[in-house]
C-alpha cells in the first residue's frame, strides 16, 4: 500500500509555528482536498508531505517507510508535486516542459516509456496540440494546464498540487478536476489545496480543513464543510444547496458572520 501517514507533525518557521500536531492518513485511490483560510498552513503541509521541508517534529511515512529516509529520487518517482507559484525560467516548448516531469526516471525508464508518459499526460490535459508552442508565451490558464501535464508525466503514485486550478476558466477547471479524478480512480492518490468551497464539495472524496496550523475538520465534504465548521473557520454564513438533476452540490456564501 502507498498510504501517506502523517503523525504528530509540527513545523515552524523561526519562532512562529505553522503546523501543530497534524495526524493524517491518506489512502491512494481518492481525491483529498485541503481547505482553510489564508495562512492556515495548507501549502506548508503539502510541501512537508512532498518531502520538501524538514518537519521540526513528527513523522511522515510513505507506504510504511519514513519519507525522509527515501532518496530524493525515489521520493520524486513516487510523489509528483506542483507548487502554488510554479516558476518557468526559460522559453522552452510545451513538450520539453512536460518532459521535465520525467527527470526522476532518468536511467530507469526507457526513452519509449518517457515518450509515452509525456504524450499521455498531454492528452489528459488536452494540451497535445501545443507540443511545439513556447510555454512562456501561453496565457496563465494555458500554462496551468501544461504544468498539470508535467505533474501527470511524472507519476508516480501521488499527485500533490497546491492550488492547481488558479487561472483556469470553468470548462478547463472542470476538465482538470476530471483528469485528477480519473487518476485517482485508476489507483493514484491526489491531494489538492483549494479555496473554492463548492469545488471541494463537488469533487473531493475527503476534505481536511486546517485553521491556524491544526486540523479542525476531516471527513466527507458534507461533514468537513458543515456550515458550523465554516462559520468558525472563515467567519462566514453558508448554506449547502443542491442544483439540477445531477444534484451538484453548491455551497452558497450568504455573508459574514458577526457573533
Amino acid at each position: 500500500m502507498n498510504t501517506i501517514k502523517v503523525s504528530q507533525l509540527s513545523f515552524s518557521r523561526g519562532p512562529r509555528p505553522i503546523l501543530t500536531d497534524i495526524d493524517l492518513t491518506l489512502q491512494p485511490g481518492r481525491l483529498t482536498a485541503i481547505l482553510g483560510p489564508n495562512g492556515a498552513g495548507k501549502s506548508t503541509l503539502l510541501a512537508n508531505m512532498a518531502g520538501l521541508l524538514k518537519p521540526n517534529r513528527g513523522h511522515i511515512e510513505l507506504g510504511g517507510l519514513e519519507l525522509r529516509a527515501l532518496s530524493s529520487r525515489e521520493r520524486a518517482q513516487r510523489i509528483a508535486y506542483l507548487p502554488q507559484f510554479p516558476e518557468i525560467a526559460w522559453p522552452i516548448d510545451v513538450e520539453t516542459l512536460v518532459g521535465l516531469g520525467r527527470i526522476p526516471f532518468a536511467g530507469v525508464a526507457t526513452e519509449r516509456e518517457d515518450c509515452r508518459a509525456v504524450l499521455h499526460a498531454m492528452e489528459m490535459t488536452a494540451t497535445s496540440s501545443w507540443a511545439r508552442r513556447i510555454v512562456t508565451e501561453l496565457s496563465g490558464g494555458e500554462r496551468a494546464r501544461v504544468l498539470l501535464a508535467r505533474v501527470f508525466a511524472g507519476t508516480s503514485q501521488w499527485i500533490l498540487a497546491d492550488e492547481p486550478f488558479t487561472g483556469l476558466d470553468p470548462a478547463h477547471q472542470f476538465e482538470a478536476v476530471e483528469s485528477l479524478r480519473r487518476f485517482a480512480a485508476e489507483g493514484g492518490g491526489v491531494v489538492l489545496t483549494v479555496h473554492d468551497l463548492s469545488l471541494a464539495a463537488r469533487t473531493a472524496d475527503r476534505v481536511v480543513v486546517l485553521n491556524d496550523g491544526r486540523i479542525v475538520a476531516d471527513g466527507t465534504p458534507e461533514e468537513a464543510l458543515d456550515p458550523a465548521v465554516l462559520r468558525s473557520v472563515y467567519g462566514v454564513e453558508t448554506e449547502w444547496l443542491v442544483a439540477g438533476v445531477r444534484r451538484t452540490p453548491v455551497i452558497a456564501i450568504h455573508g459574514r458572520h458577526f457573533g
Partner: protein
Amino acid sequence: MIVARRWLMPSLLALTALLAFGSVLVGKVTLTWDMWASHDPTTRIVFMELRVPRALLGIVIGFALGMSGAAMQAYLRNPLADPGTLGVSAMAAFGAVLSIFFGVAGLHPWALPLCGVAGGVLAMAALFLLAGRAASVLTLVLSGVILSSLAVAGISVMLSLSPSPWAATEIIRWMLGALTDRSLDDLTLATPMIAIGATLIFLCREDLNALTLGEVGAQSLGINIKRTQWMLCLGMGLLVGASVAVTGIIGFVGLVMPHLLRPLLGAKPSALLLPSAIGGAALVLAGDILVRVLPGGSELQLGVVMSLIGAPFFFALLYSLRRRVL
C-alpha cells in the same frame, strides 16, 4: 528549427576546425604551402611550438568559457550571467596574481592555476551566497559588481606593492587576456582541469534542466540542490580558474554564445551546454585571428577585443530585457 538542430553541431564543429586551421596560418608571418614544403626548420618551430599550441589553447579556452557561460545562465536562471560579467574571472585572476605576489607560483607549475581555480570557486560560492535563492537580475548583477571591484582592487594593491617590474608585467598580463606566446606547457596545464570541470558540469545537466522549474520545482523532481551547487561551484571554478590562469581574463564569450544559440536550439539548458562550448571555441579562435590580422605595430590583446565586441552586446541585451528585469 528541426533542421537547424540537426545541422548546428556539425556546422559548429566544421567552423571551429576551419578557424583552427586559419589560426595556424595567420600571424606576423602568414604560413604558406611553399614555406611548409621547403622543410625550413624555423617554419617547423613556429608551426609546432607557437601556432599549433596557440590554436589548440584557443579551442580549449573557448570551450571552457562557452560552457561555463551556458551552465551559469542555467543555474542562475538568468540570461545575463557569465563568469566575466559576474566577477568570477576577475576573482580567478586575483587568485593567480596572489600566487605570483607571494611567490607560491614559482614552487610548482600547478600552483598558479590552482590558485586561480581557488579564486574561481570562492567567487562562485560568494555569488551563490550573495545572490541566494531565486535572485533577481539586479541582485545578481550587483553581486557581480561587488566581486569584480573587490578583485580589481586586490589586483591593484598587488600591483603597487609588487617588488619587481617583472612581477608587475606578469600581473598586468592577467588583466588583459591573450593567447599570445603561450606554449604547449600551458595547454597541458589547462586541459586536464578544464576536462574535469566540463565533466562535472555535464553531470549536472539534468539538474540544470530541472531548475527551469525553480529550486522548489527541481527539488520536487528529486534533485539535490546542495549537491548540484557544489558540483557547479567546483566545475565552474575549474573551467574559469584554469582558463584565466593560462590566458588571463577573456570576457563575454560565455555571455554571447548561449544567446546566439538559444533561438536556434531552443532554451533547454542541457541542449545548450555542448554547442555553447564548441561555439565558444570558434568565437575565441575567430577573435584571436582578428587580433593578428588587424593592422598595427603590436597586436591587440584578445581580452580587449572581446570586451569591445561583448560590452555593446551586453548593453543591447540588458536594454532588450530591461522591462522584464527592472
